[in-house]
């Protein structure tokens, strides 16, 4: 077509009259004429193939090109073309002809060029270009060659990549669509994955506000014709793009986009120019996306395809957006990039995160490029507003964000779920002759046989949540348990305080301050570090607020424990026996565990640490099952997860780490013995997954000890200062307001913490079930393992309980709460495994002739005695959660009881002015001794109790108060005032002799006190502030906290599951 004036403008240096067609009558006329011409049945198509190192795919591409059948494709009877002349059946006139194939080879170093030259697809005109030639340049060269060598310019140019193989009817269908839609200027095929062939890649693309290439497809979506409608889209890929030559000569590809993203930009500019881009899904091109996937590295892609893509996307977005949107876009891109980079780092993809940031920096730091691009677009008279309707909707990025979060959550909760399956497979692979392998093969064959068609399976899987709930008694039971937990735990809603639970601080900043400070003005001032639970509380509290955090933890922990117990028991059951655990039993046991913190009394007493620790414990056990993974990499991943969860449990219940130490020590000893005995192949009680492959104890146990080390490392800012300041007792004490619960004798195996626990009979039932679980021989080893864990926990409790720690005027043993809950969990697990052994269906048996010859005939029936035992045990196990739930629903917890206030409100008001206005509380009487404590501010809040308890009272304070109470003098009063004491309180019943001494002291004025108590105000000046002694502790603390937070991020990243399963292209050639 001579004269480019039919097209308006173009990229660099166009002399054409700018403006859209409405504004130019002549151009419109010319266009109509042009369209009439193009309607001619014999379209002239020039194929333009750009190749670079594509020998792997080129033969396929060329074959596909050679197969092109340009006769009119058959039109389905039910899908008549909306307009235009449908081709009559039988008449298969060719729609056009390929007049020229131009191949531009950009400096391939492989056999690409030879392949092109030898191609049998008619006259191939090979243009040899430099290796540094960009894609737009290559296309420009190819178009130039086309136009210069053909006498009559082609009506269409068909762009192909060297890794894009068209289906035989691809071009014909594109041409047919072009004929049906004369307004179309760019037509793109449906792209499917090469070589999988059925997965959809693109059916037209658009761009979201964050520069994401939106295909509107699910990842890996199969092509079932669900997107087969010709639509107007923003852009189509250049692989298989049928485009009018004028578009390429006038609009062209932007040379600033050397490889990636030029298609989107072209489509966007075409849309801005008022041109029409259609996707023709009936035309199919198979695309390997070699550069995108990093399969092909060129000078242009570099090693970071993502960088190139992202840079191109950002440039496209900024160059084509309406001017008003640009500042907002820049802001959004900066924030979005930061967020995405963070997410990628968290998913262990630091390289890609770097690409994201680098791309943004590359675009933003060179605004001249974007400005030049925008100038050119403005000069060409493009109106970005026209492209607006074709862009992705504004909510699209948020949906992707939600999807990503959902994927991570799913992956986190599902990890290690299939450990049993993977172990079986690994065992079968290692020893194909084994019974396990035979059984697995039999199962697979049965599964294949039972498999109905995909559609039916899909429909079954798609059944709604409500339908599944209503048809499954287990699901109903699960919902009921959750309901019970939430209803019974309603006390925790709203501001909750009472029992061992101190009030939450006023703001989450208090928690952060507590965690980051080396010195606390609590009590008499102390350098005891904050308990480790403050960090998780602060992290959660930063989102929810401190009060809601405490409520949420207490209210929802039961549900979290339920989920964890369910998952752990399911996997443990499968590990113990391939049949797994019946779901009803699983439900009963998980519910029993979820209720354990309540029935033990910990919940009602407000022992937040134990409640949270118990909720995380099954997740920790679940993660520890990952040590049984046959794959070393998965075991390492399990190590990070176990370390992280162990640190979390330990921060709420410090004994957990010691328990883990003892259990791991014992397992290591067992493993060492087993290895020394050469006991290969036998699955040990440790569940550590010993394989026949020779392994040293070191390799085997490294992840276990690694997890311990990770937990210890994460808790460094807690235990190191505890040791440095001489308070090792804090490593073993129960969290919360001291004293911890009293645990004596059998209560430790009955899961009772103190007097406010559920009736013993429930726990006795569980104990009996756990003993009876040793009866079935099949699961005896894992049941014994559970008992061993319980035994180790008892031994730990025996030792730690005997340790005597003096906290103020109390002598207390170590905190055994988590050991007791661990024992409950171990006994529950034992009971479940035992019951499962006699109730689960008999395993599928391999079709082994030696077995089928057996007289029993392999009938999966069990002896009546075993079934009876199973039923009895099952009932026993079910009694525990039912009784526990009934008790929990009717119990009156100590939580939410108003704490007894010994300090009058007016003193608290005064104390709130500053830490130097302390209130000295003197309890006891002369004959049995007095104890003193100072309250600062509004009194200890959650997280401070442990500090105050461990800090104790310095001798100077005891001396000063003793002097005041024995030889009162103005000097004695001054000394007490100097400690930061404004009020003295003797709570009821006040010892009159002590009061008389204080009454006789000058410098003390009587103050009003509650009935039976006495109080005095110190009339001497208190210091201006309670001074921080400073010293080296502050910087050390800061360093430790920074180290901890960094370590936490690293561990989180390393413990995170692999969400982004990398799509690997198998080394197979397409077989189309």
């Amino acid at each position: 077509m001579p004269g480019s004036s039919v097209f308006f403008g173009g990229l660099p240096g166009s002399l054409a009259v700018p403006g859209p067609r409405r504004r130019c009558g002549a151009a419109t006329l010319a266009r109509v004429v042009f369209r009439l011409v193009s309607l001619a049945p014999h379209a002239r198509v020039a194929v333009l193939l750009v190749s670079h190192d594509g020998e792997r795919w080129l033969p396929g591409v060329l074959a596909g090109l050679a197969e092109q059948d340009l006769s009119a494709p058959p039109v389905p009877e039910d899908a008549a073309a909306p307009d235009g002349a449908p081709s009559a059946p039988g008449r298969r006139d060719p729609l056009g002809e390929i007049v020229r194939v131009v191949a531009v080879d950009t400096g391939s170093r492989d056999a690409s060029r030879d392949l092109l030259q030898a191609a049998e697809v008619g006259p191939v005109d090979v243009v040899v270009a430099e290796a540094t030639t960009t894609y737009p340049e290559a296309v420009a060269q190819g178009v130039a060659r086309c136009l210069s060598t053909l006498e009559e310019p082609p009506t269409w140019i068909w762009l192909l990549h060297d890794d894009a193989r068209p289906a035989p009817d691809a071009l014909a269908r594109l041409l047919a669509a072009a004929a049906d839609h004369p307004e179309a200027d760019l037509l793109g095929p449906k792209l499917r994955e090469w070589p999988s062939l059925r997965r959809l890649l693109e059916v037209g693309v658009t761009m979201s506000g964050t520069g994401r290439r939106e295909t509107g497809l699910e990842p890996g979506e199969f092509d079932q014709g669900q997107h087969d409608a010709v639509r107007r889209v923003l852009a189509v890929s250049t692989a298989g793009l049928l485009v009018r030559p004028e578009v390429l000569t006038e609009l062209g590809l932007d040379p600033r986009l050397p490889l990636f993203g030029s298609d989107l930009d072209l489509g966007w500019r075409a849309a801005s120019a008022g041109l029409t881009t259609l996707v023709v899904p009936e035309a199919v091109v198979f695309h390997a996306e070699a550069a995108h996937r990093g399969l092909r590295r060129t000078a242009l892609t570099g090693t970071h395809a993502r960088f190139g893509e992202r840079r191109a996307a950002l440039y496209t977005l900024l160059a084509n957006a309406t001017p008003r949107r640009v500042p907002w876009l820049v802001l959004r891109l900066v924030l979005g990039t930061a967020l995405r980079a963070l997410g990628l780092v968290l998913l262990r993809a630091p390289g890609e995160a770097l690409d994201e940031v680098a791309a943004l920096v590359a675009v933003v730091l060179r605004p001249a490029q974007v400005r030049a691009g925008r100038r050119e677009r403005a000069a060409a008279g493009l109106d970005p507003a026209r492209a607006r309707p074709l862009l992705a909707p504004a909510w699209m990025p948020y949906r992707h964000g939600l999807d990503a979060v959902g994927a991570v959550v799913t992956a986190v909760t599902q990890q290690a779920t299939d450990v049993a399956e993977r172990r079986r497979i690994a065992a079968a692979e290692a020893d194909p002759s084994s019974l396990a392998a035979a059984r697995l093969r039999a199962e697979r064959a049965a599964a294949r046989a039972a498999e109905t068609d995909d559609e039916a399976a899909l429909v079954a899987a798609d059944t709604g949540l409500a339908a599944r709930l209503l048809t499954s008694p287990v699901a109903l039971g699960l919902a009921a348990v959750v309901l019970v937990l939430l209803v019974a735990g309603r006390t925790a809603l709203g501001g909750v305080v009472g029992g061992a639970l101190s009030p939450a601080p006023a703001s989450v900043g208090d928690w952060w301050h507590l965690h980051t400070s080396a010195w606390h003005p609590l009590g008499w001032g102390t350098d005891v570090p904050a308990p480790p639970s403050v960090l998780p509380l602060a992290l959660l509290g930063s989102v929810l607020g401190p009060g809601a955090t405490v409520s949420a933890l207490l209210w929802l922990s039961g549900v979290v424990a339920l989920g964890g117990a369910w998952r752990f028991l399911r996997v443990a059951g499968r590990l113990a026996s391939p049949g797994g655990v019946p779901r009803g039993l699983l439900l009963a046991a998980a519910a029993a565990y979820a209720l354990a913190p309540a029935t033990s009394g910990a919940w009602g007493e407000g022992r937040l640490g134990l409640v949270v620790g118990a909720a995380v414990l099954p997740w920790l056990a679940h993660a520890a099952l990952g040590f049984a993974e046959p794959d070393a990499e998965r075991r390492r991943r399990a190590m990070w997860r176990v370390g992280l969860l162990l640190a979390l449990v330990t921060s709420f219940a410090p004994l957990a780490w010691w328990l883990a130490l003892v259990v791991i020590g014992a397992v290591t000893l067992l493993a060492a013995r087993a290895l020394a005995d050469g006991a290969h192949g036998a699955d040990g009680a440790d569940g550590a997954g010993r394989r026949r492959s020779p392994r040293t104890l070191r390799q085997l146990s490294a992840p276990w000890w690694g997890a311990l080390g990770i937990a210890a490392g994460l808790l460094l800012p807690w235990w190191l200062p505890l040791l440095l300041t001489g308070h090792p007792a804090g490593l073993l004490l129960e969290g919360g307001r001291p004293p911890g619960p009293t645990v004596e004798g059998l209560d430790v195996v009955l899961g009772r913490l103190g007097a406010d626990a559920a009736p013993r009979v429930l726990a006795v039932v569980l104990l009996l079930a756990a003993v009876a679980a040793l009866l079935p021989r099949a699961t005896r080893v894992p049941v014994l393992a559970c008992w061993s864990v319980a035994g180790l926990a008892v031994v730990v409790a025996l030792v730690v309980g005997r340790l005597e720690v003096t906290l103020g005027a109390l002598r207390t043993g170590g905190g055994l709460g988590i050991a007791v809950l661990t024992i409950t969990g171990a006994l529950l697990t034992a009971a479940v495994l035992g019951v499962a052994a006699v109730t689960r269906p008999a395993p599928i048996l391999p079709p082994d002739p030696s077995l089928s010859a057996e007289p029993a005939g392999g009938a999966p029936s069990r002896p009546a005695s075993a079934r009876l035992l199973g039923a009895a045990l099952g009932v026993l196990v079910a009694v525990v959660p039912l009784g526990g739930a009934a008790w929990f629903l009717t119990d009156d917890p100590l939580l939410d009881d108003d704490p007894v206030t010994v300090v009058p409100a007016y003193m608290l008001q005064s104390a709130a002015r500053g830490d130097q206005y302390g209130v000295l509380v003197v309890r006891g009487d002369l004959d049995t001794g007095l104890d003193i404590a100072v309250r600062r501010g509004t009194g200890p809040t959650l997280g401070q109790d442990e500090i105050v308890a461990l800090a104790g009272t310095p001798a100077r304070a005891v001396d000063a108060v003793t002097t005041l109470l024995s030889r009162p003098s103005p000097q004695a009063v001054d000394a007490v005032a100097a400690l930061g004491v404004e009020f003295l309180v003797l709570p009821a019943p006040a010892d009159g002799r002590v009061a008389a001494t204080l009454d006789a002291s000058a410098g003390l004025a009587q103050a009003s006190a509650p009935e039976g108590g006495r109080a005095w105000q110190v009339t001497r000046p208190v210091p201006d502030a309670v001074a921080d002694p400073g010293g080296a502790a502050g910087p050390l603390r800061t360093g430790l906290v920074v180290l901890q937070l960094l370590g936490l991020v690293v561990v989180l990243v390393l413990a995170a599951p692999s969400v982004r399963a990398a799509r690997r292209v198998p080394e197979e050639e397409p077989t189309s």
Partner: protein
Amino acid sequence: MSIPDPAPPTRRADRASQGARTVRGTRVDLRGFAAVLVLPVLVVGAALGVRSSADPLPARAPRTTPLALGTLVCPPGDGAVRVTSTATVPGTVAVADARTGEDDATPVEVRPGVVSTTRTGSGPVVVIGRDAAAPGLVAARVERPLAAAECRPPEVDVWFTGVGAGAKHRSTLQLTNPDEGRAVVDVTVFGRTGVVEATGLRGIAVPGGASRALDLATLLPRRDDLALHVVTSRGRISASVSDSYTEIGRGAAGIDAVPVQPAPARTLTLLGLPDGTGQRSLVIGNPGDAQTTVEVRLVTASSTFVPAGIEPVDVAPGSVVRVQIAPLLQQAARDAGGRGERLLGLELRAGAPITADLLMFVAGDLAHAGVAVPLERTALTPLPPGRRTLVLAGAPREGAVVVRTWDEAGQPLEPIRVDVAPGRAERVVLPEAARLLAVAPQGSEVRAAVLAEDDGATVLRPLQPILTGVVPDVVGGLP
């Protein structure tokens, strides 16, 4: 993932399939079960030894320290204040009107063996010894006709029994606050029919350096005998009760101080029974909330016994009972006299803690024989002139008492050693020249009282001076 096909059958594979036969049927294997049952038994056994509990620290008795500040408060009266001390070195104490305080004090030198006499007007007097002069202070106010008021340190909780609030028997409660701060006192009044409603005696505020005299006859006029429980709820108060009794047929009233009883007790000893035929009223208070029966015994030199003709006295809860025992005592005195013995005192035994007082008229003068408290260490009392008889009784075991006296000039007189034993009482007539008495029990605690007779009578109880202050055992506690 594909699983390779099985290798050709080997002996190993055969073994495996044989193993399967046993694994297949899950049999209840009792023998194996018994073997592994050892583990649960061990676990439960070990659990029995677990113990983790929080216990309060054991009781920690206070330490003692030399008294740093000795404060004695003498009730108002006309008599001179007599101050002495067990200190072995001379010291100076401050004697002042309690209402003006230490600033206007008269320094008084206290030397060993000497009773220093000071006149500071008729108001309440405070005696303050500091540091070295603080321990060992004893003071009393003695008047004529014979009446003696003990000067006591401020006390939190004291009892007075045999108090009157009528026209004939009339008592005044004196509350003195020696400190700067306000003090608050609650008085519970027990009468014949139970606790007496007395709103004016609840929450009595005594400002710093003030003394309040509460005339009971004005506040709660009634004719029965009363017992008072005086509790200082705030501040320090020294309480005393001065009592006047007009005996029928006599114009002048006898005056004396009602002795303080520190706390109700099940066994009480009242010492100092003068001869004569005057009124002898035993007043018993039962502050408890259950009725109790009180057995009255007589104490003589050789024995303690229940005399014929006296029934045990029932005392209703929260009430006070008066028993006229003059005839009984006269009869008993005659009986004892027949054996060559004297009645030296009374011993009351009750099922519940009680309070008591013996109200007597001797030669027209009122005298109260209060409860004698057990003495563990040297007790002192200044002696008024006249006939003085020391009675020692109530020793829980055999022991001795060294009785020392000093004359006006502070010269020691011949010490007397008296053996004491349970159930027995001793009577020592003190030398005429003695002005100061010290009773030093050895080997056993003992109760003591001095009956002074000379134009009337009064009973003085040797007082154990406060030597030490207590230092509470203080530990850091939990808020």
